[in-house]
């Protein structure tokens, strides 16, 4: 609430703290080392990631993704420590993603974290993936008390902080935005390298024709499944040209894959900006922070920027290093809660596919 400034319960550290963060809730394995200094400042010592990329038309299966993470874990962690120039012995804690995410990949990373914890006798900190995104976004951008739009392959939420909790004001009622994009990329056979959403964005720049798609916001919630069905249906329309080219010089009334990418982006991002704006009006905030993999989309950032400007506010976004799943965000959120005295005992160092953002006790904020 405006006007009432309470002091953060988090005190400045009496010595520097170091944490390793491990992330693998989806198709990226990431490791990062973060350092918190006595003066309250923070340094990213390293942030390394390896992405499991599947051929066009294919999504990533849990089993294969877990296999990828197991294969790459040690190499990525080693690189990360070398880059940071720290040894495992220097760490104060090992932070890992407890959830939400895909079961098998989460488990393989939790296993790595547990093993390292036992080998080097370091405490474990289980971290909520979404809270990781939010805390890293706040740290990088310096946003004070923003409304957070969290958009990724598995999540679509509008979040705002309230009384030691990241409250979810709006969210998807069915599939996540990234899931919608990924699945559509498969329909039109776009490459998954570097990311399906990135390729949709490039394709959309060539689109001209705005096709009607369902626009489904309900209060501060959104729904994407109907849009996915409708945009897919256009690929069966007799005007659809899969190669994007007219069949002859008279072939003017056509729909191209680029048009579909354009229409899809214009529609779903407008929905997201709308519910974000509603949340901002609701809590009286002028700041908005975009986190999550889809947050690296430039059109989304541009639209959010226009909205924020019209409201006399400001948009904060991070680049792909911090937007897309990474280890450093897990280290950051984990270290914050570690400094408040939180640890995850070995016996409880499980992971969970379902883990709501608002279940986390945000002890480090006032």
């Amino acid at each position, binding site marked *: *609430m*405006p*006007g*009432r400034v309470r002091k953060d319960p988090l005190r400045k550290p009496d010595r520097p703290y170091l944490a390793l963060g491990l992330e693998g*809730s989806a198709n990226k394995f990431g490791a990062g080392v973060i350092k918190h200094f006595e003066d309250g400042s923070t340094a990213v010592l390293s942030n390394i990631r390896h992405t499991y990329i599947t051929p066009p038309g294919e999504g990533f299966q849990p089993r294969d993704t877990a296999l990828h993470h197991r294969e790459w874990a040690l190499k990525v962690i080693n690189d990360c420590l070398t880059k940071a120039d720290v040894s495992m012995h220097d760490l104060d804690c090992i932070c890992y993603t407890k*959830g*939400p*995410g*895909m079961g098998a990949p989460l488990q393989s990373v939790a296993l790595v974290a547990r093993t390292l914890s036992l080998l080097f006798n370091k405490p474990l900190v289980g971290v909520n993936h979404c809270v990781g995104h939010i805390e890293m976004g706040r740290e990088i951008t310096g946003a004070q008390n923003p409304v957070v739009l969290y958009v990724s392959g*598995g*999540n679509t939420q509008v979040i705002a902080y309230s009384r030691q909790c990241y409250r*979810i004001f709006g*969210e998807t*009622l069915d599939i996540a935005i990234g899931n919608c994009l990924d699945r559509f990329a498969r329909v039109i056979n776009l490459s998954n390298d570097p990311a399906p959403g990135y390729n949709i964005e490039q394709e959309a720049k060539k689109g001209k024709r*705005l096709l*009607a798609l369902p*626009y489904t916001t*309900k*209060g501060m919630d959104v729904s994407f499944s109907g849009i996915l069905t409708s945009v897919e249906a256009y690929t069966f329309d007799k005007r659809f040209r899969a190669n994007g080219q007219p069949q002859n010089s008279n072939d003017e009334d056509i729909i191209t894959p680029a048009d579909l990418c354009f229409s899809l982006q*214009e*529609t779903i991002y*407008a929905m997201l*900006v*709308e519910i974000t*704006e*509603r949340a*901002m*009006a*609701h809590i*009286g905030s002028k700041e908005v922070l975009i986190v999550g993999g889809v947050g690296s989309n430039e059109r989304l950032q*541009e*639209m*959010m920027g*226009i*909205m924020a400007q*019209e409201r006399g506010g400001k948009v904060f976004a991070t680049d792909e290093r911090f937007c897309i799943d990474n280890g450093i965000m897990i280290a950051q959120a984990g270290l914050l809660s570690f400094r408040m005295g939180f640890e995850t005992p070995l016996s409880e160092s499980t992971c969970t*596919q*379902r*883990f*709501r953002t608002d279940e986390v006790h945000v002890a480090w904020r006032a």
Partner: protein
Amino acid sequence: MASPSSSLALISTSTLISQGAEAKVYKAHLSAAPSDPPVLLKHRFRKGYRHPTLDASLTRGRVAGEARALLKCLRAGVNVPGIRMVDAAEGVLAIDWITGNSVRKLLPGGADEDEDTGEDEDESEADAADALQEYDISVDVLMQLIGQEIAKMHLADVIHGDLTTSNMMLRHPASFTSRHPTLRTELVLIDFGLSYHSNLVEDKAVDLYVLERAFSSTHPDSEPLFASVLKAYEQRLGKEWAAIGRRLDEVRLRGRKRSMVG
């Protein structure tokens, strides 16, 4: 021969009342006739971030949707403001101007817009009691009126979508001729901007749950208040209540949101 928008010209001479995320609200007069009563103009202004074609069709659809919900309520005998003018192309809806106060302002805790006005609590509660006296109505009767209007609305399969005590008004006795034997005021439901048509038990239960949350976050010791709202709702709804009441209990347990998959 389309000319610069008359609705925008009208807005330029009107008084801005409030600005939300969706729309700006004005007090206006549709004509220069001295006998013309004021109207409330709701302008869904253009959103620069949205593709113009999409923006135009959404705005048109929403103005139409709000107007249809209001008419549906009017036909069903729900107290809502009458419609005075629709300019869907420009995103403008004009409805009757209601003289009175929002229920939020008339109940304890609702007078202070934000928490930090520095007003002391007792004082605002006393203000609220005074205000109700002006309307010659007890808190309990007010709660009954709320329950009745929501029940009538739900019986017409209209879901409000944003039930709060800010979105209900009491007509001021001085500006309203009541035909009720004992009441000098009338409860009016307003702001149907998020409303939709549904006959689902789930949607009605969530509508009530949203109001319950609004009560508890705005008004201290709201439990007995909301209980009497529900009691009047139940009476008016009759046999349809059982299913909605059961669902409301479920919604309370899980919250408005369903459980999240990773």
